[in-house]
């Protein structure tokens, strides 16, 4: 591209942006939203206003639909990779192969680093981490859906719904418990139940982190004045970073607790204990 062509492109791009800006200012100050910001933010947390019909069977939260779409996209992606990419893997990896291997390697390494029983754990944290990351990124695309009341709605991240977060938090807890059972039998259940607050903390940490990002993003997009430049920063901070951080936090916590409860506790032999007691009594006697 020559300098003149570049200049032309910049001018055209700037003019288009200017036209959009003028248009958005002229069409009103609420960014097209019919609800108040309070309603929007309350609904983002409570999901009591905007519902989407699930094939006419039930009205569900939009995040559940997001979850289905994200799962569909991920399964399709996995299927394409399985058919077209993985059979062409080489010993010296290309760029895309390297990305896939790195992602699998990160979760596998995390599982191996935290527990000696790591086959299932690696697969679980891979799925959970990928789901959280992709689901959070999905929010950026602003896929539209129609609510039961007929309003268009931008689909949120699946984990921005408390039900989704509770599901993943509780499931992670169950996975941790399964690690305890495999590693220590019935004692493993006891060890897991000791951390009874874990499912709550895992669920609401995820929900809180993602809903806070969603709320800030909602707030920013609600006002026209904040719709220029700011969303770039907000989008990166509250979506991309959240996607990475929350995926890492949940998988890391799950691995850590899994490793902790699956670790075998070796009791010292009884004879040594007795000897130890004898020694202590001798020492005490000597001291007296």
């Amino acid at each position, binding site marked *: 591209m020559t300098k003149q062509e570049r200049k032309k492109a910049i001018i055209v791009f700037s003019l288009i942006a200017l036209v959009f800006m003028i248009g958005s200012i002229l069409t009103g100050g609420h960014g097209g939203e019919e609800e108040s910001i309070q309603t929007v933010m309350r609904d983002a947390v409570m999901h009591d206003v905007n519902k989407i019909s699930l094939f006419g069977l039930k009205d569900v939260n939009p995040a559940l639909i997001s979850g289905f779409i994200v799962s569909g996209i991920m399964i399709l992606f996995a299927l394409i990779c399985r058919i077209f990419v993985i059979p062409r893997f080489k010993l010296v990896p290309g760029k895309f192969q390297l990305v896939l291997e790195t992602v699998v390697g990160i979760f*596998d390494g995390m599982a191996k680093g935290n527990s000696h029983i790591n086959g299932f754990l690696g697969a679980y944290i891979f799925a959970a981490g990928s789901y959280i990351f992709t689901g959070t990124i999905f929010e950026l695309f602003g896929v539209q859906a129609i609510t039961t009341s007929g309003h268009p709605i931008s689909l949120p991240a699946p984990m921005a719904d408390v039900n989704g977060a509770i599901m993943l938090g509780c499931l992670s807890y169950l996975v941790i418990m399964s690690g305890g059972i495999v590693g220590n039998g019935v004692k493993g259940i006891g060890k897991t139940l000791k951390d009874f607050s874990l499912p709550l903390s895992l669920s609401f940490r995820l929900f809180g982190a993602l809903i806070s990002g969603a709320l800030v993003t909602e707030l920013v997009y609600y006002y026209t004045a904040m719709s220029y430049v700011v969303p770039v920063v907000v989008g990166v901070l509250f979506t991309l970073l959240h996607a990475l951080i929350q995926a890492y936090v949940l998988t890391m916590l799950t691995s850590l607790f899994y490793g902790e409860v699956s670790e075998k506790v070796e009791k010292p032999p009884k004879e040594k204990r007795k000897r130890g007691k004898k020694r202590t009594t001798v020492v005490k006697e000597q001291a007296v």
Partner: protein
Amino acid sequence: MTGVPLNIDWQQILLHLFNFTILFGALYILLYKPVKNFMEGREAHYADMDSKAEQALADAENSKASYLKKEKEFDDEVRAEKNRMSKEIEAERERRLAAARGEAEKIISDARTEADREKNEIIESAQKEITGMITDAMEKLTLEQTASDAFDQFLDAAEEATNE
């Protein structure tokens, strides 16, 4: 679902769970397991290569050790052979030296014998010559005396005859 905080809906939780279970299964079968298998296969391949290289290295080390051992043995053998040869050479030298000495002594002895013999012969011939010369001289002397005596006798006879 009134009364449940945050509008938690158990049915939707189960739907999320159903969704995630399918996703987990699909990701495990389609992506995680094949990629992990490939990575493990490659690791095994490189481990195999590594073990083969180590084996080859060990073989090379063994060959080197064996070669060095053989070289040492050869060196020892060469040294022993050299020692043996030098001893033989020394013995041969001594033997030849002794033989040369013996021959020299023999030559000297022969020479002496020859010299003595020649000396004796010379002395003997000289004695013979001297004896011959003396004999000749005596003969001559005798002859001279006889002639002079005969001449004297003749003269005496002639004188006597004259006188008579």
